[in-house]
């Protein structure tokens, strides 16, 4: 099996999706047929309180700010992967110091960004 072939991944994904779909359709068919429809049952579950469908729930800025900061720091980590992979080789052929310097500057910017985020209370979840 040539290592690195992508087709098995697709085959497994299709198998998993059909397995899940069969499960859902199967439980649908196996369950009791005469489903008692009642408004109370259909309402979203809110621990017994009558559902108040307020127009716009209080929108917290924190969620999408965390997602934005996640993207930016994730890319900085992804840039570290190629560097980490060849770090041992560059140590062996003597260019370790240069590699360390290049990544030191990059990680320095990463740390400055992180410190600024923490200090600017962007990540406080109060």
């Amino acid at each position: 099996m040539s290592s690195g072939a992508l087709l098995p991944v697709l085959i497994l994904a299709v198998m998993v999706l059909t397995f899940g779909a069969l499960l859902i359709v199967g439980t649908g068919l196996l369950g009791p047929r005469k489903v008692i429809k009642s408004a109370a049952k259909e309402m979203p579950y809110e621990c017994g309180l009558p559902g108040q469908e307020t127009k716009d729930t209080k929108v917290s800025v924190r969620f999408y700010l965390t997602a934005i900061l996640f993207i930016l720091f994730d890319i900085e980590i992804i840039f570290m992967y190629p560097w980490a992979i060849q770090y041992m080789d560059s140590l062996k052929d003597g260019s370790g110091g240069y590699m360390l310097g290049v990544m030191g500057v990059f990680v320095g910017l990463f740390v400055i960004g992180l410190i600024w985020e923490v200090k600017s209370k962007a990540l406080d979840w109060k």
Partner: protein
Amino acid sequence: MPQIQLGLGVDSTETIINVIKMFALFLLMVQLVPLLVWVERRGSAFIQNRYGPNRVGPLGLLQLLADAVKFLFKEEFRPKKGVAFMYYFAPIMALLPGALSFASIPLSVPITLQGENWGPYNFVLQGYDLGIGIVFILGISSLGVYSLLMAGWGSSNKYSLMGALRASAQAISYELALSLSLVGILMVYGTFSFTEIVAQQQGPLTFNFMGQQQVWSFLPNWGIFYQPLGALLFFAATFAEANRLPFDLPEAEGELVAGFHTEYAGFKLLMFYIGEYGHMLVASCLLATFYFGGYNIPGVTPAEVTAFFASYVGEGNLSQILTAVTYHVSLLLRVLLFLWVFIHVRWTLPRFRYDQLMDLGWKTMLPWALFNACATAVILWLFQS
């Protein structure tokens, strides 16, 4: 019809064997849920000094079979205002990350089987061997967030949407610490593929200190001795990724009823559990592969084990298969140990509050992971020169 060369095997029999092996590995993960739920209920009972399920079958083992059958026959329910497609696709999507990641982890030593008519065929207990193991698993586990968001949005319930957003915010914050702790592993091993990482962990602990080789033969050459802090960060981050206590606030009963899977019942809820336990299984396998020597048995090489079985069973397929089984059992012991740690922590540690949880992720785990990566780089540079 053009003859299709799939990447799966030399001839059609090998391809069929590989496809069956892949599905068997997926079923191995799916049937793990009843086992782990049983261990969890008995274990928590043991911790809280009570019995746990013991009515149905010996030691309550069949309790899970009874639950599964009960779940199968539950009434099909969907909230009226729910978004049908997303409501049904979310549990299916929850299965995908665990299955695809588990299939890429090597579970045993590759062996070669030889029959009279079918040629030498090397068999490895692994779904598929992608050259880039680590990056693939990180990519697939970052897709797990979609099943949370779809479940939250599909059940059109204010609380489950909030639970889904909280769970995904937590999952992505801890993914940073997870991928940063892997940078240390990449530096030490210099490769992405799992088989090479496990191969580099054989033999006694050898590292070069100030230029000359140091061999400590009493310690195995495991990753934990190179990356102790990395292992701790990795394990803690996988707790948060799998929404396990102490990081399971989004699903906590007290907080948001049951978070994103409030409106789910029956087998759909069980599929979310399969996803969660699958994530736990992958995390334990990764921890064993990176830091505890994968399927290596310290002090013994695969050739010796095959020779040992050959002396009893005679040269041929059986001794090869027995070697593969022993190496698989050695990995399984480590994985079960870590799964027990997952369960043990659930019943001993209290739950974090949400702001503490996010602060821990961003303000302590991420800086420590960064420190670990930089410290590894500097130490490697010092030791190397």
